[in-house]
């Protein structure tokens, strides 16, 4: 199985690239081959502290896990990574003479929050796909010009600004496992999968509900500059809200070598 991947990302208008708090994996365009290919996007919550780093840890935990997409297994990988990274960060602040300020302490205690949307494409003895999602980052599967799958949200009304997210502080994850969405399906050569964070996903679902084919506009964005210009227009027309935007476009190759 071979998959061509394209990645588009940009920070919220007015923010710098360093302030971008979404995450995605793999982190570059290219052709990926193998019997199990894993992809993920995540959206760190703006009200959390260090949420961008937590989102990075989650997408890596998903994509580096082997033969499991179960949330407890993913958390078992991600939480120790977070603890190590946070300790390193706090040590660095101390060494740099920038101790934690009083206004950072409550946020650091509460921890970071992020969505996670992971997709695994499988070939060989057990072909198909499976996805794991928590929060409002979404996956859409398009085959022969028609939407086949929308998950975990397929209703534009269901997007809000108060999703239940994955917390880096385990004490805040009560009820998380019951909220995880798992889905499975099949794929065919030529299928396209779109993984995206909520600003674009909300627009995508709304367009589908109106009978449109939003992937046509996505396909027209051939490079990052075109993508930036297109999303700037959507923002100006208030079709999408100003937020970090991440889009991972995957196309299953027609010709299997």
């Amino acid at each position, binding site marked *: 199985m071979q998959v061509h991947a394209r990645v588009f990302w940009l920070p919220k208008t*007015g923010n710098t690239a360093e*302030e971008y708090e979404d995450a995605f994996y793999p982190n570059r365009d290219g052709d990926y081959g193998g019997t199990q290919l894993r992809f993920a996007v995540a*959206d760190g*919550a*703006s*009200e*959390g*502290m*260090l949420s961008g780093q937590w989102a990075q840890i989650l997408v890596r935990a998903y994509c580096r896990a082997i033969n499991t997409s179960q949330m407890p297994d993913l958390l078992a990988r991600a939480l120790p990574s977070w603890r190590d990274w946070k300790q390193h960060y706090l040590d660095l602040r101390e060494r740099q003479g920038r101790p934690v*300020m*009083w*206004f*950072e*302490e*409550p*946020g650091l205690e*509460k921890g970071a*929050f992020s969505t996670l949307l992971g997709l695994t494409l499988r070939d060989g003895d057990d072909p198909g796909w499976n996805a794991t999602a928590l929060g409002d980052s979404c996956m859409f599967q398009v085959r022969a010009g028609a939407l086949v799958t929308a998950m975990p949200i397929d209703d534009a009304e269901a997007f809000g*600004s*108060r*999703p*239940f*997210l994955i*917390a880096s502080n385990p*004490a*805040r*994850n*009560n*009820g*998380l496992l019951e909220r995880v969405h798992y889905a499975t399906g099949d794929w065919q050569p030529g299928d396209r999968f779109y993984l995206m964070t909520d600003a674009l996903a909300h627009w995508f679902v709304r367009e589908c509900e109106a009978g449109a084919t939003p992937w046509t506009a996505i396909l027209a964005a051939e490079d990052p500059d075109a993508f930036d210009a297109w999303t700037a227009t959507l923002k100006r027309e208030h079709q999408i*809200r*100003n937020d970090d935007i991440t889009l991972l476009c995957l196309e299953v190759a027609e010709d299997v070598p």
Partner: protein
Amino acid sequence: MAYQAEISRSNPSCFLFLIDQSASMADPFGTGDAKKKKADGVADAINRLLQNLVIKCAKAEGVRDYYHVGVIGYGKDVGPAFSGPLAGKTLVPISEVAEMPARIEERTKKVDDGAGGLVDQTVKFPVWFDPVANGGTPMSQALMRATSVIRGWLTDHPDCFPPIIINISDGEATDGSPSALADALKKLSSSDGGVLVFNLHLSSTDASPIQFPAHEEGLADKHAKLLYAMSSPLPDYMRTIAAQEGFNVDEGARGFVFNADIVSVIQFLDIGTRPSNLR
């Protein structure tokens, strides 16, 4: 639709606090701790409001200037009431508020120990204001000053999320009825809607605390009714968040609180994704 403007560093909004520093604030507050004066309640409320607003705007790399903040005291005098390095300033970016409290105290609070019990934890408590109780209650003058400050802000920020004014008082104005002046203040607007005026009423009256009522029935006295009448209804988006946070907010609920916590108003502000498991 009103109250939809994005609050950002390039399009910040404004908070203006009006704090009653009159002699009547030396009277006892509510029915609880008899030693606590209304002036202590005011200082506690304004310090906690500022602390929570700063924390709301804090990221790991610093405090983002989503808001500019001012405090006008009214009692013996009417004017800017920041103490310490911010003394004399009318409106300052929230990052300066964060960096320049008069002092930082340490207090203890009870926190969950993760095993079903509670333990004491030391937390830093920044202080910008100490209790003051001196002179009359020139609330009308304070509202006139607020109108002047907000008019200037709106000239410079015509498309901002509408400024929020929070008045903390016992409601016993000594320079005439403030109602018409509060109405004039609420008539100011940005392109996103009218200025919001909220009131925290700290009273010596022995009556139950009330948060965000939608009608004046049950309010203890004429002072409470006056401040309730001066208060703006919560915009729909704030009411939605308040309901999600577990507050009982009927349609028409106003930004009025009687002898209770008003700091929750900070949680009703929308500056981005707030996870439902972050309380």
